[in-house]
């Protein structure tokens, strides 16, 4: 019987389930997560209950991220919404084996050098947080309302490019979603196709 079980297990190892990224869609509850920030502090989404939360997927090596930091766009959003009591979390899901990976100290230096002002910068080298949200690119943006419901998921704006000059003429979807939600209206554009660089996820699950 043991032999049969082994053989059968061998045959079926190949039919095991393959992983597909499953994402919550706007209107669904955002999955909670726990991660460590660049200062080594544990941060959980539940810590920000009662606040709007913005999630920004970040990778300094990505030209699309550079576009929004070189133009000062991302920093000004972080400062504007930080002042409005919105928790802005920058998350880096780059795996340690990628050439884009930055250890916490280096990443912290990059954020400081760019005069950025997120509430926290989270290390997610295993990719758990990114996978839970189905984040595909940097910058992939999410807005969560005070009840923990996802109200926006997608691109930062409507200008798919790496050119910093395009920021001025773009419609910023994150700002629009926060404006709608804060005034009690349903978010008119709750979903868009995110653009950017592929997140360099770890291959092991």
């Amino acid at each position, binding site marked *: 019987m043991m*032999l*049969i*079980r082994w*053989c*059968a*297990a061998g*045959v*079926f190892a*190949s*039919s*095991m*389930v*393959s*992983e*597909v*990224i*499953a*994402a919550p*869609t*706007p*209107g669904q*509850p*955002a*999955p*909670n*997560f*726990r991660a460590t920030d660049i200062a080594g502090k544990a941060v*959980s*989404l*539940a810590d920000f*209950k009662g606040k709007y939360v913005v999630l920004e997927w970040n990778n300094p*090596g*990505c*030209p*699309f991220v550079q576009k929004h930091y070189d133009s000062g766009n991302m920093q000004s959003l972080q400062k504007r919404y930080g002042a409005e009591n919105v928790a802005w979390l920058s998350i880096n899901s780059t795996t340690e084996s*990628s*050439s*884009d990976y930055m250890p916490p100290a280096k990443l912290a230096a990059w954020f400081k050098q760019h005069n950025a002002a997120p509430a926290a910068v989270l290390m997610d080298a295993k990719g*758990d947080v990114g*996978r*839970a949200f189905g984040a*595909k*690119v940097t910058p992939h943006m999410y807005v969560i309302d005070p009840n*923990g419901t996802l109200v926006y998921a997608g691109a930062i704006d409507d200008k*798919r*490019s*790496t*050119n910093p000059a395009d920021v001025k003429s773009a419609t910023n979807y994150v700002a629009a979603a926060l404006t709608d939600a804060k005034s009690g209206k349903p978010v008119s554009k709750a*979903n*868009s*196709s995110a*653009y*950017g*660089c*592929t*997140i*360099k*996820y770890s*291959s092991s699950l």
Partner: protein
Amino acid sequence: MQLLSALAFALAAIVATPAAAQSLPRFGAAEKHVDAELIAATDAIVPGQPLTVGLRLKHENEWHTYWQVPGDSGLPTQIKWQLPAGFNAGAIDWPHPKRLPVGPLMNFGYEGETLLLTTVQVPADLPVGTPVTLNAKALWLECKDVCIPGEAQVKLTLPVKAQAAPSSSAGLFKASQARVPQAALNATAYIDATRIRVALSPPVGKTLDKFEFFPLEEGRIEPAAPQELKREGAQFAIYLTAAKPVGTDFKTLKGVIVANGGPGYANGWANVVQAPLTAGAVGAAAGATGAGGASGSAGGSSMSLLAALGTALLGGLILNLMPCVFPVLSLKLIGLAQHRTHSGPMAAHGIAFAVGVVLSFVLLAALLIGLQQAGSALGWGFQLQTPWVVAALTVLFFGIGLNLLGVFEFTMGSGVANLKAADTLAQKSDWRGSFGTGVLAVIVASPCTAPFMGAALGYAITQPAVIALSVFAALGVGMAAPYVLLTLFPSLLAKLPRPGRWMELFKQFMAFPMFATCVWLLWVLAQQVDAGGVALALGVLVAVSFALWALGLSQRGARVFRWVAAAGGVLAALTFAPIATSEALAPGTRATADTGWIDYSPEKLAQLRGEGKVVFVDFTAAWCVTCQLNKRVALRADSVKKRFTTDNVVLMRADWTNRDERITQALAQFGRNGVPLYVLYDRKGEAVVLPELLTEGIVLAALDKLTINKLKEASR
């Protein structure tokens, strides 16, 4: 090969044209991985005639740029024209792209060398003789594991002549034009949740053996999701997965289908698909198992033929070890050992046995196909869903057991001998004996569906008859293989132990696995009929054993017992009659051994999935030994039961002990036609199919995966 292309690239860089040399990526020359150049299909511009030009992109090894829809990430290449007055450039005619997987994500783009085509309108009043320069700025994103924006100012100067000849690049243009998708195919598309089914016919004279679908609109199709192909007569259906959330404005499916590798490959083609998309039942591609219920390709018809044949072969081999086959075959081996001195060529025995086995499997398959085409919803275990078949098999195994114990002997030519003459057949020294043993082995094997055969059988049932028959034949070949080997290499046979008294004892001992099989069959019967029915079956066994005892006595010379045997046979038949006519109990009236499980119904399942409940569905049957084993080893383990409770998993049992059309259909949705099947629906209603052999660890790991998200959410 990589070295060669690297060399070629280096050479190309040295002799780069002035236009290419003007490529200036933003991050300096050291980070340049793509060369851009503007070229024309002709050697001159002709006033009033459209001019075909192309942006030639040469990618460094492993680097790529993007198609017009880049997939999960990336940026399409752009050409910004700066043309003299009167000139007008059209949009890019994109050659079809390749799928470029990046971890769990998917991009659509180009590697190696590509030519992005553009048609430029030339003014009719252009003076002949003065050369014209076309300028453009090309912008792209070049990626390997990292991405770098690239741009180049490109230009092309051509003479203006009354007539033009093909340029030196004309061949390249021809090849690229061939890769630009042809006009839209007629197609219809249906969407059910996120599952999309597109029915289409290939262009006239073409076939569709494999394909890749590239969406022409952003955010409509999940780029990385598996794509499946199913043949439906002259038409084909392709199955795609919509990106979530599905927009209400998603009314037309637009994309490019690249078939058989695309133009440039034998029988390859690429066409645009533009299909009105309507909500409707999509049905399941036969291979719709695996992650997400709608994707993945474990064990269904998407399993390649070779894999199915291999699995069937292995399944056949393992069948030899099943308790209800092993004794018969052991006896055959003993027979061979006994006759090895005086039975003629061994190989003939082996081949006769193999032919018997393979023919029986093919016949069984033909029967299955026939029944299936007659509209019956049948699975491999179907014969065990009818009480009288179970009872009859009990009698057969009981009889074989008595025979092995020596209560009576079979003599050839008794009409039903080929069904039960295990011993006699095994000892027969001519080829008919070997052939008969082969047939018997298959008949005896039929209730012992090895757990891993489900996939191969599911595959066979969903395939054209020829393929189904070959899968079953492979099963037979696998089962017969060890014996053929032994007969082809009689030296191996010489290593078998010498015959002696031990053989008689071994034969007698083999009666007990037979009786054990009877116990199992009776237990199955007890799930199907009430206590009275089981008592009747036991009565039949008493009558049969009496008849066989009498038969044994008559064989030993007491001829008068022949009549007693006949009387016993009549008695057995009379007792059997009520069972033969009895109906199986209605599903749901059977006692369920486990508490906390609810009966399966598609409506209830849909409701629970809608409510966001985690549901574990156990597709099982009393006659399925693997199912019982899994129940014992995994599902009833304390750790698993505890987790089911703490995780609020709704436990649903689909009991296929008796025929149940709705369960047959549910199994078919996962590309199966047999049990066990274990499906775990997460709180989003997505299905995860667990392996057919469960352990505590497998179930707990599957729950862990779901629970990570669930618990995180709960703590909010």
